[in-house]
C-alpha cells in the first residue's frame, strides 16, 4: 500500500526490524512558544506511570517564539538514561524541519506528521513508514479559540500515540485530572483532543505499531525531575537563607525553584514574615559579591550561574579563597566559549573553575551526574564550604539541569544538622582576647572564624590584601607565606573528605574508563555494549576535585584509561595529568562537544576502534 495517510501501512515491509517492546525513541519536532511542552510532559509522564523507564531531552533554541524545537523521549525497559543515538518514531509538527526530521529517522522507523496540509512528495522514504493525521484540521473543527486550537493540536498527537503505542488511557485521564485539578473544563478540552487523535489513529492505522509499550514495574520508588529543581531543594534543605543571582540560561530555573519552595515552606502564615532573602543582582559580579557578604555575615548563601557568570565572578572567587569565606556557586554549564550556545550542553568549565582567579588559587568542585546527585551534592556543598571556609562550586550542565531525569526518590534524614564548621560562639570569644582569624590552631589547616555582631573579641578585618595569621595587613614575606602555605595544607585536608568517586571494578581487566557528571548514563550503556563485544572495562566517575586517593589507586591499577567528557580540550584529562600520577600514554581522550548530550554510541565507536587496534598491534 502507499504510505499516504489514511490507509493502514504495510508494517512488515517498512519495518524490517520487526516488533520492539519498551525500547525505542520518540522525537517530537515542533515550534517553540506553541505550548508543546505540556503535551510532551503528558506523554512522558504516562509512560513513566506505566512503570516503563523513560528519559526526556529538550532541544530548544535560544529565542522565545517561532523557532524549531525538539523533544526526545527514550523508552528503555533496561533503564538506560542516555540518548540512544537514533530516532525510531518522529512526530513532525513543524513543516519547516520536515526534511531533516525525516532524514533522522532510523530505517524501519515511523514518521508521523500533520496531514492537514498536503505533504511535500520529497518526504517519502522507502525504509520509513509515513503516517499522516490531519491534527490541525481536526482541532480547528473541534475548538473555536485560536490559542486552544494551537495547544490542542499538540495534545491530539499524544492521543494518536496512545493508540499507536498502546498507552494506558486511564493513566492519561488520571494525569489530566491531576494537572488541571481545579479547572474541569480544561480536563474535558484536553481529553477531547486526546480522543480526537486516539480515534483517528485507531480508525486509520493498524494499532499498535510493532514498536510498542507494555506496562512494567520499573519506575516504582523513582521520580521524574530536572536537576535545577533538585539542586534548589538541596539548597532549601541545606538551610541556605540568602540567594543572589543574575538570570542566565540554563541556571535561571534553579533560583525560580528555590524561590517558590521558600515561599511555600519559609513564610510565616500569620505575619507573612520570610525566613529567606533572595536578591536579583544587577550582574554576576554583584551576585557573587552579595554571596560573599552574606556568607561572611554568617548566612548560608549561594548563587547559580553559567559559564559567562563564572568568568565575571573570577575576581571575587579569588577573594573568597584568600579571605576564606564559605561561598557556594552552582555552575550549570552550557556550550562555550563566550556566549556560545546557551541552550546546548557541555562540560567545558572544569579547568576554569578548578583554578578560577589570578594568583595561586585552587577550588573544591563537585560533579553531580543526575538530579538525584544535584540534591545530595548541593547539601554537601554548603557543609564543605563552611567546614573548609572556601568557595565550593557544583558543576552541573544544561542536560542535567533542565531535562527531566528518572531518578530514585530523594531521601532525607531528619537527623541531619548543618555542619557550620569552626565558628566561634560569643562565649568562646569572650574567653579569647587574642583571636587569630588565620592561624592553624588545630593542625588541619582550617582556622577558626567569628561572625560579625557576635562579640567584639571576634572583630577582625577581612582583606584580600596580604595578611598575617591575625588578619592584620602585612607586606612581610614570612607572614604572607605562612598563610598561603596553610591554605595549601587546608586544601590537602579536604582531599579525602570530599564525596568519594564511584568505582566499578567488577571486571578483571587493566582497561578502564574515567568519566564525569552527565556522561554517566552513556558510559554505563557503552560498557554493556562493549562487554557484548567482548571488551570488559572498569569504571571510575569522579564526584569531586581535588581528587581522592581512590582516583590515583584506580589509575595505578589500569594500563589504559579512556577519559570520557563533553568538551573539546579534554579538560578532565588535563586535570588528571596535573593532579594525579597518570601519564599521557595511560589516558586516552574521548571527547564529545557538539552541544548534544553524549550517547553510548559516541563512546563505543572510539573505544571499540582503539581496543581492536590494540589487539591488531
Amino acid at each position, binding site marked *: 500500500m502507499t504510505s499516504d495517510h489514511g490507509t493502514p501501512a504495510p508494517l512488515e515491509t517498512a519495518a524490517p526490524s520487526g516488533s520492539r517492546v519498551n525500547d525505542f525513541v520518540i522525537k517530537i519536532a515542533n515550534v517553540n512558544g506553541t505550548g508543546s511542552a505540556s503535551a510532551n510532559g503528558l506523554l512522558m509522564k504516562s509512560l513513566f506511570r506505566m512503570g516503563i523507564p523513560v528519559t526526556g531531552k529538550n532541544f530548544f533554541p535560544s529565542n522565545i517564539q517561532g523557532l524549531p524545537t525538539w523533544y526526545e523521549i527514550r523508552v528503555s525497559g533496561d533503564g538506560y538514561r542516555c540518548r540512544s543515538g537514533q530516532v525510531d518514531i518522529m512526530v513532525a509538527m513543524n513543516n519547516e524541519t520536515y526534511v531533516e526530521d525525516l532524514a533522522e529517522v532510523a530505517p524501519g522507523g515511523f514518521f508521523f506528521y500533520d496531514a492537514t496540509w498536503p505533504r511535500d512528495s520529497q518526504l517519502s522514504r522507502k525504509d520509513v513508514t509515513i503516517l499522516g493525521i490531519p491534527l490541525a484540521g481536526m482541532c480547528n473543527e473541534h475548538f473555536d479559540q485560536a490559542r486552544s486550537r494551537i495547544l490542542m493540536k499538540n495534545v491530539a498527537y499524544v492521543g494518536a500515540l496512545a493508540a499507536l503505542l498502546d498507552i494506558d488511557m486511564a493513566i492519561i485521564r488520571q494525569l489530566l485530572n491531576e494537572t488541571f485539578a481545579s479547572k474541569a473544563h480544561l480536563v474535558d478540552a484536553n481529553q477531547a483532543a486526546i480522543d480526537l487523535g486516539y480515534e483517528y489513529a485507531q480508525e486509520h492505522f493498524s494499532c499498535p505499531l510493532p514498536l510498542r509499550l507494555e506496562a512494567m514495574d520499573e519506575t516504582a520508588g523513582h521520580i521524574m525531575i530536572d536537576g535545577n529543581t533538585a539542586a534548589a531543594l538541596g539548597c532549601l534543605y541545606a538551610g541556605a537563607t540568602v540567594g543572589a543571582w543574575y538570570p542566565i540560561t540554563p541556571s535561571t530555573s534553579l533560583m525560580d525553584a528555590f524561590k517558590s519552595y521558600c515561599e511555600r515552606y519559609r513564610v510565616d502564615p500569620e505575619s507573612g514574615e520570610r525566613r529567606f532573602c533572595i536578591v536579583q543582582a544587577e550582574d554576576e559580579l554583584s551576585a557573587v559579591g552579595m554571596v560573599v557578604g552574606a556568607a561572611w555575615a554568617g548566612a548560608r548563601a549561594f548563587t547559580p550561574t553559567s559559564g559567562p557568570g563564572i568568568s565575571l565572578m573570577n575576581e571575587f572567587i579569588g577573594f573568597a579563597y584568600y579571605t576564606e569565606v564559605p561561598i557556594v556557586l552552582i555552575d550549570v554549564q552550557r556550550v562555550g566559549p563566550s556566549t556560545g550556545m546557551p541552550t546546548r550542553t557541555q562540560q567545558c568549565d572544569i579547568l576554569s573553575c578548578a583554578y578560577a582567579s589570578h594568583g595561586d588559587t585552587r577550588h573544591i568542585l563537585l560533579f553531580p551526574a543526575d538530579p538525584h546527585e544535584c540534591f545530595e551534592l548541593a547539601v554537601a556543598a554548603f557543609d564543605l564550604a563552611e567546614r573548609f571556609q572556601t568557595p565550593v562550586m557544583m558543576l552541573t550542565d544544561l542536560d542535567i539541569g533542565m531535562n527531566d531525569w528518572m531518578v530514585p*526518590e530523594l531521601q532525607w534524614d531528619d537527623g541531619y544538622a548543618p555542619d557550620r564548621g569552626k565558628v566561634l560562639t560569643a562565649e568562646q570569644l569572650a574567653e579569647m582576647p587574642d583571636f587569630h582569624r588565620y592561624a592553624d590552631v588545630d593542625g588541619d589547616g582550617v582556622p577558626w572564624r567569628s561572625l560579625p555582631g557576635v562579640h567584639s573579641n571576634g572583630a577582625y578585618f577581612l582583606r584580600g590584601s596580604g595578611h598575617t595569621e591575625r588578619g592584620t595587613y602585612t607586606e612581610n614575606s614570612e607572614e604572607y607565606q605562612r598563610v598561603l602555605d596553610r591554605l595549601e595544607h587546608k586544601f590537602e585536608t579536604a582531599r579525602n573528605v570530599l564525596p568519594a568517586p564511584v568505582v566499578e571494578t567488577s571486571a578483571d581487566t587493566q582497561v578502564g574508563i574515567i568519566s564525569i557528571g552527565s556522561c554517566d548514563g552513556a558510559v554505563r550503556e557503552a560498557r554493556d555494549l562493549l562487554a557484548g563485544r567482548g571488551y570488559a572495562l572498569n569504571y571510575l566517575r569522579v564526584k569531586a576535585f581535588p581528587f581522592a586517593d581512590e582516583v590515583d589507586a584506580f589509575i595505578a591499577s589500569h594500563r589504559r584509561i579512556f577519559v570520557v567528557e563533553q568538551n573539546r580540550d579534554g579538560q578532565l584529562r588535563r586535570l588528571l595529568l596535573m593532579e594525579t600520577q597518570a601519564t599521557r600514554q595511560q589516558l586516552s581522550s574521548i571527547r564529545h562537544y557538539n552541544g548534544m548530550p553524549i550517547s553510548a554510541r559516541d563512546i563505543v565507536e572510539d573505544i571499540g576502534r582503539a581496543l581492536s587496534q590494540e589487539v591488531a598491534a
Partner: protein
Amino acid sequence: MSFIRKPTVANSRLPKNALGLTRRDYEGGMSTLCAGCGHDSITAALVQAAWELELVPHQVVKLSGIGCSSKTPAYFMSQAHGVNSVHGRMPSVATGAGAANRDLVCLGVSGDGDSLSIGFGQLAHAMRRNLNMAYVIENNGVYGLTKGQFSASADVGSRAKRGETNVQPPIDPVVTAIALGCTFVARSFSGDKQQLVPLLKAAIRHRGFALLDVLSPCVTFNDHEDSTKSYAYTRRYYHPAIHADFVPPAQDIKTAYDHGEAMPVELHDGSRIVLRKVDEGFDPSDRARTIGFLQDAAKKGEVVTGLMYIQPGQDDLHEVNHTVPGPLHSQPYAGLHPGADGLKDLQRRYR
C-alpha cells in the same frame, strides 16, 4: 584550639558614653596615610559620631573597596568587623551582609575612584534597593593610591599635578544619587567637623541608603594650585546651604533650638534631623529644584554642602522583602525545610 591571652588596657579618665565606652574605644589602628590627608579627618569624625551615637562596636560592620580611602576602616572602631572588598565592589558585599543580618549597622567608606569609576554600577543599584547603610565617599578627585590619575569626579578645568587638565564633565555623586532616587543625600568637607559629625550621625540613623559625599583633599596629588579639590579651593568656594543637626529620640527639640526657624525631619526610630536653611532657593525635599540649585552652583564653581535631599519612610531592602527580624543565620534550622515527610510529600508531583 588555643589562643594566647593578651591583657587589655582600660583608659579610665576619658569621658564615657552611655555604654561606658570612651572615644578611644571607637578608634582603630594607626593610619598609614600621608600626613594631612583629608581621609584622616573623616576618620576622626566617624569616631566622634559613633561614640556620640553610642553604637555597640561589634554590631557595626565597616566595609570598603580598595584605595587610600578604602584603607580607613582599619583606622577606626577596631572592635567592629570590617571588610576590605575588591576594588569598586563593596556595595554588593554590603548588600549581602545586610541581607544576611539586618541588625548590623552597615557603614561603607569608599573613594571617588572606587565608587564612581569601577564601582558606579554597584553603587547605583545599592541605592535603588534602598539598602540600609551609610555610604561615605571620601572624594578627592583623583586615584590617590595609584598616584594621582584623574577620577570620574575630577572637575572640568582642574589641573593634575603632572600638568594635564581635565576636560571630561565630572560625575557629581550628589546630583546622580538624587536623580537615582537615593533617599538620603548629603555633601560635606573633611575640614568641617562641625557639619560632618551630625551628618554622619543622621546618615547612620537613616533607615535606607544614605549617601554622604565628603570632599577630602589629597595633599600629595591634588592639593596644588589649579586643583578644584584642594583645601584652598574648597575653603574658598565653600557654601553650606543648610544646617542639619541630629537629635536622638529622648532629647527635646525646643531645648535644642530656642531660636531660628527649624524644620525637624522625623526618622523611623523617633530621632530627628533638624534642618535650618541658610539658603532660601533650596528645599531638601524637592529633587528637581535641588538638582537645579546644585547645577547652578556648580557653574559658579561653588561647593554646596549640607543635607541635600532626604526622604524618610521609604521601605528598605528588608521591609520590601518582609524578612523576619534578626540575623538569618540565627533562624532555627527546623524552620527552613519541611523535613523527611515534607520531602516525600512534595515529590508526589514528580511522579
